[in-house]
């Protein structure tokens, strides 16, 4: 809904379409200047953190997997890493590789969903992926098939695609046999080519000029494109261990949102694919660097609209990395490490598809959780999204409300915001004439 009068406008979108979860946007313009931008996210008031207190440390993967249907693996992996840190356990190298493979599946699924069903329609002038599919069925089918390959990895390793049940602290309940992974590898070879085609396709879109201000923050690993461990790095030179996260990053309540907003000691920051790409380009395999060069993307990119290209490149990477892991895979001697409880606090940080996801747990000597802190990427990005919108709207005040609102929604979708734990009910109005 929009209202306007001379020099003063209020743009309000009560329910953001094509955003994973629940959210709204409110922009106030007075006397030709943007006065206020609020992204209102209806995040649960720490339901899961409270729910985890008093539970056993072994329950954490199953409970945290239910925080998000789109990225359950990310929640499980950060959670497991934090619990293992608290217990002082190091996992087997092949188990670590399997976790990375599982994570590749989630990146493929989540990015393919966002690229094809949520974001591409914006660039091509369609109201939704349904209209896109009616005109370009083959393209949308490619996206669905690509997403399914990610799904297949989750099924084989996680036991099922939604809320994987095979993950436990210390590893997995059951490790796959080499033969179990062979059919997945076959589909991944097709997927890698499809992902390359995807990158070439999205690179042909028209991208508004916009430069992301502030720090970009992501995990960094010297030998690999960081997914499931590393140090926390930033474009301004931050380089800390995961356990130092609370000293540098925090969350605060703001009046207009039930979600906590991320705050860094150094100022506004952004996490997600753009941050990873800018910080970790050198660690990408040659095939991804080559595709980036082919589509005209340099080693740095700060245009949030081009995040769709970066996501496509990350799908190429995830397919290639998954194949590399499967090729080198030997089943571990044991699918999980022993995990006797040990009183203490542990930190975990991994790269969810939408960016850095931090967990911290304090457990007692019996393994009962006394404190839990979960900092999702969307909460960290929220101030940055609002800041970016402020400038974005100011430069586009000549547009009518309808077009400006549409472009603002597109700009928000650049960040692929995910608001955890939305309900899934359907509101249905029936004309009983």
């Amino acid at each position, binding site marked *: 809904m929009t209202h306007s009068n001379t020099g003063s406008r209020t743009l309000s979108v009560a*329910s953001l*379409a094509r955003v994973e*979860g629940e959210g709204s946007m409110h922009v106030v313009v007075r006397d030709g200047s943007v006065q206020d931008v609020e992204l209102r996210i209806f995040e649960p008031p720490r339901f899961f953190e409270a729910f985890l207190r008093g539970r056993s440390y072994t329950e954490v993967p199953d409970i945290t997997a239910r925080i998000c249907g789109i990225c359950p693996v990310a929640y499980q992996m950060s959670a497991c890493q934090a619990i293992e840190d608290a217990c002082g356990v190091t996992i087997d190298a092949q188990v670590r590789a399997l976790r990375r493979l599982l994570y590749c599946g989630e990146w493929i699924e989540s990015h393919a969903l966002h690229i094809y069903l949520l974001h591409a329609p914006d660039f091509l002038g369609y109201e939704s992926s*349904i209209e896109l599919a009616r005109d370009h069925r083959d393209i949308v089918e490619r996206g669905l098939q690509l997403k399914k390959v990610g799904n297949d990895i989750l099924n084989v390793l996680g036991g099922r695609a939604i809320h994987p049940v095979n993950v436990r602290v210390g590893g997995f309940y059951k490790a796959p046999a080499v033969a179990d992974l062979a059919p997945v590898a076959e589909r991944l070879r097709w997927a890698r080519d499809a992902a390359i085609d995807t990158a070439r396709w999205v690179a042909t879109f028209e991208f508004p000029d916009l430069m992301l201000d502030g720090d970009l923050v992501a995990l960094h690993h010297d030998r690999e494109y960081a997914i499931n461990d590393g140090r926390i790095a930033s474009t301004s030179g931050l380089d800390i261990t995961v356990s130092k996260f609370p000293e540098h990053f925090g969350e605060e309540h703001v009046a207009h949102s039930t979600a906590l907003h991320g705050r860094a000691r150094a100022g506004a920051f952004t996490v997600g694919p753009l941050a990873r790409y800018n910080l970790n380009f050198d660690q990408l395999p040659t095939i991804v660097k080559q595709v980036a060069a082919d589509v005209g993307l340099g080693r740095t990119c700060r245009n949030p609209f081009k995040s769709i290209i970066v996501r496509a490149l990350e799908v190429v990477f995830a397919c290639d990395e998954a194949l590399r892991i499967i090729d080198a895979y030997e089943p571990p001697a044991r699918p999980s490490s022993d995990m006797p409880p040990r009183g203490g606090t542990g930190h975990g940080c991994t790269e969810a598809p939408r960016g850095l996801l931090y967990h911290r747990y304090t457990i007692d000597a019996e393994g009962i959780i006394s404190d839990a802190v979960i900092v999702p990427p969307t909460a960290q990005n929220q101030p940055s999204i609002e800041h970016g919108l402020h400038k974005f709207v100011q430069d586009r005040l000549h547009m009518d409300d309808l077009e400006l609102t549409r472009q603002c929604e597109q700009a928000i979708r650049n960040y692929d915001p995910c608001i955890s734990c939305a*309900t899934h*009910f359907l509101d249905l109005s*029936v004309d009983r004439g």
Partner: protein
Amino acid sequence: MSAPNVVIGIGNRFRRDDGSALQVLNALAGRLPESTVVIESDGEPARLIDSWADAPVAVVVETVRQNRAPGSIAGIAWEAHVASSTGIEHGSHSLGILEAIALGRAVGRMPLKLRLIGIEPEDLGWGEGLTAAVAHSIDAAADLVLDYLGLSASASAFRSSR
């Protein structure tokens, strides 16, 4: 060999009555032929399409608000809603069952027959467990699933007791 029938429950068990469809799946345990595939879903369209493509019959159970008495169960005539809308409005998740149906039709990946059962919620707040009115409706919703699959409730109970 033909594809199996599919029963899909969409919901979130941490949002009170939004978990009703998942409880219906529990109530169906042991009452369905072994060939029937039972899937818990968060409503994400691509996975829904994968779940039901080419199934002879797919029955989807979901929390649906129609301003009826809590616990009311209704077969939803989804055809009218999908056919009449392009930008389908959802209460919470922007992509859901109606988008999945529309997308599935656009790419030709639908079951031969799709039935949608809606359960009216009372409380969609945070927490586990259904309200009494919705909990009371679970068995009837499970019977309706069996009916849609061509299995009478009594016949399936007999099958599960053998």
